[in-house]
């Protein structure tokens, strides 16, 4: 089974809109929303949740004031400034390293496992989908990304699917790294702006770093052709596969407002460009 991960470096370039359209066009696919921090794919695919699971990962220190002698050992050891002068743990700062719990001379610190979010197995009009919601301000997004990708792979294999379509997060840090490992290819959705180009450069380097084939398309290409062409030549010089341009078209936003993918919404030039892009993506992966 193959896996295509759609990423962008810069946010808001159209990853999710495009992935939703690919879901509508693909066959024998399973969808995976790996942007667990701010998941949006469900707004297009309207999944019917079949299973809901707790996501537990990491631990959190909790000081029991009855047992605590306020000796200050934990305060001196904590490198994350997570313990206040009156010996309370700030759950947002606590990294879950367990140093305070391990060394507390009065055994006054508990170290329970964290409930960090939920993940779901659902069905959609285009096939099954694995998605998740990380709790607000939670850590461990990388672990949750790894988990939803593993579940999508397991279930996809069970059902004889041919392709996992994974919607990746923006950036180049922990959740992006977790979303890329072992993928057949990444598709970077760029845009013809100074920031789109800069961010494509960095996220594509990450693809190189993990030795994953990098495919590139430029969304809203006609907004600034000069930058679109520059991105095209950047790809050529770096050996990334450039797959084409998509037009700047308000139809993408209108489709989203209606909760539809672009290919369900209209039959104009934007749809044609997306269908054509999907054909090229398909050819690269299979």
């Amino acid at each position, binding site marked *: 089974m193959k896996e295509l991960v759609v990423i962008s470096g810069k946010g808001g370039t159209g990853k999710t809109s495009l992935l939703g359209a690919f879901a509508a066009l693909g066959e024998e696919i399973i969808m995976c929303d790996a942007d667990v921090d701010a998941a949006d794919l469900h707004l297009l695919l309207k999944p019917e949740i079949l299973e809901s699971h707790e996501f537990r990962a990491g631990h959190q220190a909790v000081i029991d004031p009855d047992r605590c002698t306020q000796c200050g050992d934990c305060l001196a050891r904590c490198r994350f400034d997570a313990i206040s002068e009156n010996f309370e743990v700030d759950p947002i700062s606590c990294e879950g390293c367990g140093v305070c719990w*391990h060394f507390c001379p009065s055994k006054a610190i508990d170290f329970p496992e964290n409930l960090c979010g939920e993940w779901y197995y659902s069905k959609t009009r285009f096939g099954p989908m694995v998605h998740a919601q990380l709790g607000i301000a939670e850590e461990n997004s990388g672990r949750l990304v790894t988990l939803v990708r593993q579940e999508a792979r397991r279930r996809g294999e069970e059902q004889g699917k041919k392709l996992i379509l994974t919607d990746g997060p923006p950036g180049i840090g922990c959740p992006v790294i977790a979303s890329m490992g072992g993928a057949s290819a990444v598709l970077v959705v760029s845009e013809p*702006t*100074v920031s789109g180009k800069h961010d494509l450069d960095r996220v594509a380097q990450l693809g190189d770093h993990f030795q994953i084939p990098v495919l590139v398309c430029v969304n809203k290409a006609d907004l600034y052709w000069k930058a679109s062409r520059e991105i095209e030549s950047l790809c050529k010089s770096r050996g990334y596969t450039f797959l084409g341009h998509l037009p700047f078209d308000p139809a993408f936003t209108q489709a*989203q407002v209606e909760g539809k993918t672009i290919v369900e919404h209209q039959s104009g030039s934007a749809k044609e460009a997306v269908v054509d892009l999907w054909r090229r993506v398909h050819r690269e992966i299979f």
Partner: protein
Amino acid sequence: MIVSVASGKGGTGKTTIAVNLAMALSGENIQLLDCDVEEPNAHLFLNPSMHGEHTVSMEVPRIDEEKCTHCGKCQEICQFNAIGILPNVALTFQELCHGCGGCFMVCPEEAVMSGLRTIGTVEEGRKGPVDFVHGRLRVGEAMAPPLIKKVRQYAVPEKLSIVDAPPGTSCPVIAALRGSDYVILVTEPTPFGLNDLKLAVGAVRTLRIPMGIVINRCDVGDRKVQEYASRENIPVLLEVPFDRHVAESYARGEVLVDGFPRWKEMMLQLFREIRSRMHVP
């Protein structure tokens, strides 16, 4: 005073607002801190002249095999699987280390030595009266928060520090926003914009920081962001209509307050709104 610009969804216009706010207010004592260290972009628009670069590293363990007895205590205390002790060899996986120091403290043989993992760089610059600092995460490095905290340390209390935060709602965003006096949430009036705005509002509420909303491209979608804001009692500070000329100017990397007088007025109005809500004279 620290005013941070954030959003759940990426690409809504955080950097545009942060840069143009800084440039519009450049009569004041301003700092712009770009904390989107994974994909820093503010410098592409601000074009500062850079004058300082510092490598940022984290302390990670190295094991001295001469002293190590392979007792396994360091592996046991490490919550991040960064140390593996086999009968005859000690392995460290430095990229997994969170830098808690537990292994140094627990080793009875003093066999854990200090090593460094480079996580990125902090660069300083200046554009006219605006002081600029940003962080660049090393490509391949997973942990953004320690670098974000380093950039935040450059905030000078006597100045107005404008923080350009990363998208999302998890630990990098929290690291960027903590300790801010006000958060501007930039969104767009679409289902994705609204969904991610709600998540961002949740994150800012966890931090108990006052906030207001800027609706960018306010005429492209629906009215649900406005309805949500009024239901939740969060002020809408500014609504910016879509303008293709502005989008093209952004694409070229231009400062909008230079080319569009209306943008300068909007940014000054935005700042007045924030000040009045913070009860600052």
